[in-house]
Each structure stands twice: as C-alpha cells, then as structure tokens.
C-alpha cells in the first residue's frame, strides 16, 4: 500500500489504475486534483453553489463506481466532466418539469434582441482585463435560460459538436443550432456595451 503522502507525486494514470484496483486514497488524490474543475462545470450549469457541490460530489461517486468503464480514450478529467454534465442535465430537466418555462424560453425566437446588431470588432477584449471580462460574461450567461446557457457551455467551453450536444440534451441538431444562435444573439446583446466602455 502506498503511503498517503506519496500520492501527491504520482502520475494521473497510476492514480487511476490504483483507484480502479480499489485504492480509495488514490481516488481521493484524483478528487483533490480536479474537484475545482468539476465543481466549476456544475456551477456554470446550475448557477447555484449548493446544487453544484452536490452534483459534483455525485459525479465523483458515480466515477468511482464506473472506473472500470474508463479506458483512457479521453483524459480522466474530461471523462468525469462528461459525467457531471449528464447529471446536471438530468437535474435541470427535473427542475424544468417542476416549473413553468422561463420567459426567455417562451421568447426563444426573438431572444429579446433586436434583429440587426451593429458590426462589432471581432476582438473587443484586448484592452479589458481578462478576469473582469470573464466576470461579465459569467453574469451574462447567468441571464440566459438553462437551455441556451447549456448549449453555449457545451459548444464553446466543452468544444462539443452539434451532433454530440443534441445527443446529450435529447433534442434534434436543428434545435441545438437554433438555441445556439439565439443564445449567441442574447450574449452579444447583453455585452454589446463592452466596446463603448472600452473606448471611454
């Protein structure tokens, strides 16, 4: 048995192998290394700290149970991120069944945005601090319906193709494309002031 203090220096592959063989301490080291990333993905989808904590912990528990199914095709953290995304999608679907659709979803077609936006500088972020910009993007994401936010997160941050998003969200590729389009339009509208402020 490896001493607990030694796990910190072990390679990820070795930790995964040890965890697969039932070594809980090796698994704890994996949790310690990646818990923030898994939590961040859950938080970006759920927009609630407590729920995100629960979802991410649940993902780790499922990960432990399914370690034998991890074959190393993707990195361990990518594999676990997929698990937390699926759990969040399930939870969001459950929540959706229990409440009326958001105003944004009812207004999905218009997206609450004018049809014609001015042509923007495709690189508006140069003179803004990245951290500040990320905060503003995060606030804007928080104003989207969960369908629009999820499709943006999966496409832009998880780099999934339309087909994979459709599969995970249980809808057609056409729906994914439409949601993505209106989500982008809404984000562009919410952050359209960036260029003006930047010039001040």
């Amino acid at each position, binding site marked *: 048995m490896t001493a607990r203090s030694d796990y910190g220096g072990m390679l990820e592959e070795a930790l995964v192998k040890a965890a697969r063989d039932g070594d*809980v301490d090796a*698994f*704890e080291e994996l*949790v*310690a290394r990646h*818990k*923030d990333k898994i*939590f*961040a993905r859950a*938080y*970006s989808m759920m927009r609630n*700290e407590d729920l*995100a*904590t629960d979802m*991410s*912990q649940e993902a*780790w*528990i499922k990960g*432990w*149970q399914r370690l034998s199914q991890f074959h190393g095709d993707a990195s361990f953290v990518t594999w676990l991120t997929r698990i937390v995304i699926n759990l969040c999608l399930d939870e969001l679907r459950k929540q959706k069944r229990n409440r009326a659709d958001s105003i944004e979803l009812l207004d999905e077609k218009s997206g609450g945005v004018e*049809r*014609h*936006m001015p*042509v*923007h*500088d*495709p*690189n*508006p*972020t140069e003179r803004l601090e*990245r951290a500040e*910009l*990320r*905060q503003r*993007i*995060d606030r804007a994401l928080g104003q989207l319906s969960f369908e629009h936010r999820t499709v*943006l997160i999966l*496409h*832009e*941050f998880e780099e999934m*193709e*339309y087909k994979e998003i459709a599969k995970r969200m249980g809808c057609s590729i*056409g729906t994914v*494309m*439409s949601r*993505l*389009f209106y989500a*982008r*339009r809404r*984000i*562009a509208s919410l*952050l359209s002031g*960036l260029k003006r402020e930047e010039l001040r």
Partner: protein
Amino acid sequence: MMHHATELELQAYADNELSAAESGRIAQILKDDPEALVVFEEIKFAKSLLAVGELEATTPASRQFYWSKIERAIASKNSDIRANSLNPFKRPWLRFGLPAAAAALIILLIALLNRPSVEPPAVAGYFHEIDAPLAEEDAISFHSESAAMTIVWVDSRGY
C-alpha cells in the same frame, strides 16, 4: 429579412460544421449579401467573447469536508457489494437461475402427469367388450395388449 435557415447556415459556417461545398456556397452569400455579413459578424463577436474563457470557480467546501461525503458514499457502496457477494441469493445468476429452475421443474411435472397412456383407450375398450361366442367351440385365441390385437384360430374341421 433574412430567413432563419440561412442564419443557422451562417452559424454552422462560423463553427466549421459545413462540408467544403456548403462552405463555398456560404462564402459566396457573405460576399453578395451585406445583411448576411452583419449576422455573421454578430456570431463571430459572441464567439470571440466566449473564447476569453470561463470564470474560475472553486469548491466552497474544504478538501476534507468535500471528500467526506464522497468517502461515506463509497464506503457504503463497497459494503453493499460485499454483503451482496456473501449472500448467495443476491448473486445475479442465482437470483434468476432459481426461479427458472423451479419453473422448469413444474413444467416437467405437468408433462409427466399428462403423459398419454401406452394403450390406446378406444382400441382397448373395443377388445374388452368382445364376448367370446366361440369359447365352447374348438378355437384358440391370442390377445396382445401391447400390440392391441386379438387373433382367433377356429378349427372348422369339426363342421
């Protein structure tokens, strides 16, 4: 006003989700249609914003506190697995094998009980009702249950 399908094609072009032929067609639309260019620039603007990346979030709980719930769940699931492995009736092959074996036994018993008799009843009944009018005659008879037949030799020389 631009058709929504064209807007989605422009987006798919920006996302590199189109074939080479389709991409060529959209590139031509962008050259010819200023309205399409406005929509395309808007999509690129949104993409460039999101390319900045996500806000970094950290778990509010400490490492130990966060891990403790996971650890408890793992321990509980491991003890369930151990308990299942010790209880023979929780083994999957037994859980499904025992009812299947019981069902097979019942079917076998029913089949045995309903097995047809060796002697065909109609034929047997016919021969049992035979009176033997030749008993006092000079005759020899042979009856076989298994072959379901009766043979009678009558000596007619006396007549």
